[in-house]
C-alpha cells in the first residue's frame, strides 16, 4: 500500500515536472543537442546506481517494511521540500504586493 502511494505521488509529480520543463527541454534539444548526451549519461549512471542500490539494501539486512518506511520518508521529505519552496515564494510575493 505504501508502495502504491509512493508510485502515485511520484508519477503525478513527474508529470507536473515534465509539463513544466518540456518547453525548456525542447529549446535545449533544438539548440544544444549535445546536452542530451549528458542527460543520457546521467540517466545511465542513475540506472547503474539503481541496480547496485538494491544489492546494498539487501546487504543491510533491513526488513522490507523498514525499507518501505524509509523510502516513503525520503520521498515525503523530497516532495515536501520541492512543494514548500514555491509556496513560500508565493507567500512572500503576496506579502510584498499587499504591503
Amino acid at each position, binding site marked *: 500500500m505504501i508502495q502504491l502511494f509512493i508510485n502515485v505521488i511520484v508519477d503525478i509529480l513527474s508529470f507536473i515536472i515534465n509539463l513544466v520543463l518540456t518547453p525548456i527541454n525542447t529549446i535545449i534539444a533544438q539548440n544544444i543537442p549535445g546536452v542530451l548526451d549528458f542527460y543520457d549519461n546521467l540517466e545511465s549512471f542513475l540506472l547503474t546506481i539503481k541496480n547496485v542500490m538494491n544489492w546494498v539494501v539487501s546487504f543491510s539486512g533491513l526488513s522490507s517494511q523498514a525499507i518501505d518506511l524509509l523510502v516513503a520518508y525520503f520521498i515525503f*521529505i523530497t516532495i515536501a521540500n520541492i512543494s514548500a519552496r514555491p509556496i513560500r515564494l508565493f507567500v512572500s510575493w503576496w506579502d510584498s504586493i499587499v504591503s
Partner: protein
Amino acid sequence: MNKKEYLTNFKVMFTMFICLVLLILLFLSSNIVHALTASMWGTAVENHINSLTSTSSYTYDNYNSDTIKEFIFNRSNEQFFDNTLTQSEFYQRFNYVVLGYSQSTIRVFVQNYERVMDYQGLNAIVGNDTRFFFANMTIQYRAGSTTYWKCGVNAIYSYYIDINYNTMSYTFSDNNPLTDLDFYLLGQDTHRSDNNVPYGSVDINMQLFDSYNGNFSWIETWNELENTDSLWLRVSGYTTDYTITNYYNSIVDFPDLQYVSSGTPDDETPDDGVGDLSDIFEQFLEKFKSIDNNTNESKGFLEGIGETLGKIGQSIGDGLNDLIEGISGTLNDIYDWFTGGFNDLVSGISDFVFDILNGIQSIFDWLTGNYNLNPIENFFNNFNENDYGLQIFITGPIDVIRDLDGDLCEPLRIPLPLLNENNSIYLPCMSEFYREQIPDFLNWWQILSNALVIFFVGRGTYNAIHDLLDPKARDSVMRGML
C-alpha cells in the same frame, strides 16, 4: 582493589586471553591444513576427471577415462532408464562434474539440463521416459485474445554417484533430485491467432516427482505482461516458494493466488456507466474525426471538447459516488477498510489520474499525427518523455529511491578490468544469504533495525512538519533528514 590485587587479576586475565588466542589459532590452523590438503587432493582428482573427456587413454589406478565414462553411463542407465538409452543419447542430455571426494572415493555429480519451449500445453520431456518427464505447464488466456505467449520451462535433474577407487563399488544419491525448476514466458507469439481460447487457471502437470520442495522461479518481464490486456496471468514476484506434494500424474493449481493473481472473466463485462476515461477519450477522438471530415477543424474540435467534457463530468460524478459509497461502506468494517477497501480506493484514484494523463496524451498524439503543428511539434512529442531532460535532476533520484527494495535484489556481477566476463566479481544477494545462513540473527537484527528506522523516520517527520509550519524557517524541510 590495591595495586597488587589489580596486577594479579590482570595476569590471570591476560593468561586466559593468550590461551584463548592460541586455541583459536590452533583451530584455524587445523582447518587451514585440512583445506590445503583437500585443495591439493581435489585438484588432482579434478584434473583427472577433466581428462576423461579427452581421447587420451590416461590411466589412473586400475582404470582409464573411457572406463569411468562408461561406468557412469552404465550405472545411470541401469538405475534410471532400465537400460533403454544409448551412450550417445545419455551424454547429449547429461553432463558430470566432480562434486567431492574422500581418500578412496570420488563423487561424480551428474546433472541433466533441459530447456524446452513450446506453445500452450507445453511438454517438457526427455525421450518418453516418465522418470524424466519434468513438467507440463499450461497457461490459458482471456477469451477473445488474439495473442498467445510462448512459454517454456527449465528443469535440472541431478544426482551423484560415489565411486570407490579400490573396489569400484558405487552408490547413488538422488534424495534431492530436483535442483531447479524455472518457468518463463518468452514473449509474444505472433504465429497463432485462435480467438476461442478458453478460460482457465495456471496449471502445472507434474508427472515425475512424488514431492517437491523448492523454488519455482518465474523469469519474465512481468511489467510487459501487466500492460497488456490480452493475458490475464500476472506474476507479482520474481521468486516464490511453493511446496507441492503428492501430485503424481495430477494437475496442481498454484496454492497461493497472491502470487499468481489474475483477472476474471467478469473483467470483460462492460460497465453500465459511461466507461473509463480512456474510452471516453477514444470516443472523443472518433467523434472528432467524424465531425472533422464534414466540417471545419475548429468546429469539430470544439464540439468534441464539449461532448468530452460532459462525459468527463459524468464520469467524475460516478467516481465520486463510488468514492462516497466506498467510504461509507468501509466505515462499517474497519478491518476491511485497512485490508482491502483502502487499497481499492487508492487504486481507483490512481487509475483515474492515469486515465486522464493517457487521455491527454492520446489527444496530443492524434493531433500531432493529423495536423501541421510544426512550431510546437517537438513539444507534443516530448510531452511525456522521461528518458532525458532537465527533469532527470529531480525525478531521477526520486526514481532511484522509489525502486529500492531488498527483495528485488539481483546478484551483482562486476567485471574486472582487462579480464573477460568469467573473471568478474560475483556478489550474491545478501538477504537470501542471511535467511539461509543466519536466520536467528537476521530476526533479531530486523527487530532492532525496525525500531531504529521507526525512531529515525518519526523524529525526522516531526522535525520536517514542525519546520514546515514555521514561517521563519528557511530551507528547513531538509533538516528533517538530519
